[in-house]
């Protein structure tokens, strides 16, 4: 069961790293977050701790329902649905993702914890998505994937208190809200959400 969920996480993260259409990226993000939420719930079922249940339900509610709604609404408002020019093209970014996951699993091969390794792999993919894309909305999704990695990472530690876990989840939600509003304003000011135009602010 957990193996299948980890498979979903890895495959969706690989696909997210190269796909151009924002709708598909959002769908991949939904699958990934749902898998992470289910993993946390399964851990709660196995250990019987209330923390895990709360964290899992929070993850599913915020990341499967609320954040995709915000993304689709802002996409509809902005009338963009795909990202045509990438800084790193799809071929290279797929391969970089594969090598990144390989490195993450290779460095940590002493530890037996799969969540730790997958979490670090998600860090790498999120950072890649933030660096390699030009549109602000995909950069936001990159940060959210990074944040998914944090959730997975800290379930393996299991020493953090519930306050911090809930804080992390709500931080992601707030970020999505703020970015939704910000992207709208960026679009109004620059007629585009391409982050290259931020250089015009120099004067």
């Amino acid at each position, binding site marked *: 069961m957990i*193996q299948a969920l980890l498979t979903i996480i*890895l495959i969706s993260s690989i696909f997210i790293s190269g796909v151009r259409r924002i709708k598909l990226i959002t769908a991949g993000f939904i699958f990934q977050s749902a898998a992470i939420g289910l993993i946390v719930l399964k851990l709660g079922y196995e250990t019987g701790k209330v923390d895990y249940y709360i964290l899992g339900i929070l993850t599913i509610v915020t990341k499967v329902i609320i954040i995709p709604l915000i993304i689709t609404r802002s996409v509809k408002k902005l009338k963009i649905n795909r990202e045509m020019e990438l800084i790193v093209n799809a071929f290279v970014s797929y391969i970089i993702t594969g090598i990144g996951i390989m490195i993450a699993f290779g460095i940590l091969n002493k530890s037996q914890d799969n969540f730790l390794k997958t979490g670090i792999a998600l860090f790498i993919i999120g950072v890649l998505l933030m660096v390699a894309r030009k549109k602000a909305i995909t950069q936001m999704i990159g940060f959210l994937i990074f944040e998914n990695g944090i959730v997975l990472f800290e379930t393996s530690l299991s020493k953090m208190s519930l306050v911090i876990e809930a804080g992390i989840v709500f931080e992601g939600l707030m970020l999505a809200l703020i970015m939704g509003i910000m992207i709208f304003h960026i679009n109004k000011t620059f007629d585009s959400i391409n982050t290259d135009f931020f250089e015009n602010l120099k004067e």
Partner: protein
Amino acid sequence: MKATLRGYRGSSVVQPYYDLSKLLKKGRVISNRSSFITTIGPMVILGATITTAFFIPVFYTSMEKTIGNLFILMFAFGIVKMFTVLIGLDSSSTFGGMGSSRESFISMMAEPLILFLMIFLYIETNDFNVFHISFINSKIVHYDTAHLITMVTFVIAILAENARIPFDNPETHLELTMMHEAMILDLSGSDLAYVELSSYIKLIVYLIILINCFIPIGIATTFTISALLIGFISFIFKLLFCLLGIAIIETTFAKSRLFRGAELFPAMISMGIVAITLIYIL
């Protein structure tokens, strides 16, 4: 093989066989510009695919010494592909050459992928024989992550190798979109029947490799009646399930552009890298 064309949802299940028998009754018409390759090509293709059908376990497997090397399978499919491309070039029509170049482009990308999958199976089971691989894998109870990732990769490799929808539409005859059909456009009568039949067999052989290498639950490992019966029934169920999956993919996805479709291959290769890393480390 009967339900290969489930995607139609309407025409009869035995309709492909009617088509084939109708085509087999007709004679051959060969363009006078074409050389001996078109004459022998369809027979070679049909022979190679029928050969591969004998190399795979269907619902019985054992650890005995049998012929079933993965490399032989892949190279037999290589023969099929090479002769299809040659027929396309040989007919000296525009579409033939175009289809050949596209087909070789796709298969050029798919070849390293198949090698990755073979390396994965070798690391997992220390064997290249399909019979042995399915025997060893039928003992696994919990599949690990690497196994599942490779399974997904192999499903997409099947779609690419058999010219299915995200890469090529097997039904169309519109000149801009056809790839496999463009190469066999000049064939007619019994030649066309041979090529079509071999493409059906090829799809089913790939599906059987998928079923028996990656999900061989319930396959018969002893030669008794009950085990064989269980193996047969579970095999039929798994095959129908796979075909249903392909039908769903074909009806929901649209054919992507040639270069956009080719972008799937680096994703597959990256998944292959990940799977090999996982199986090697864990």
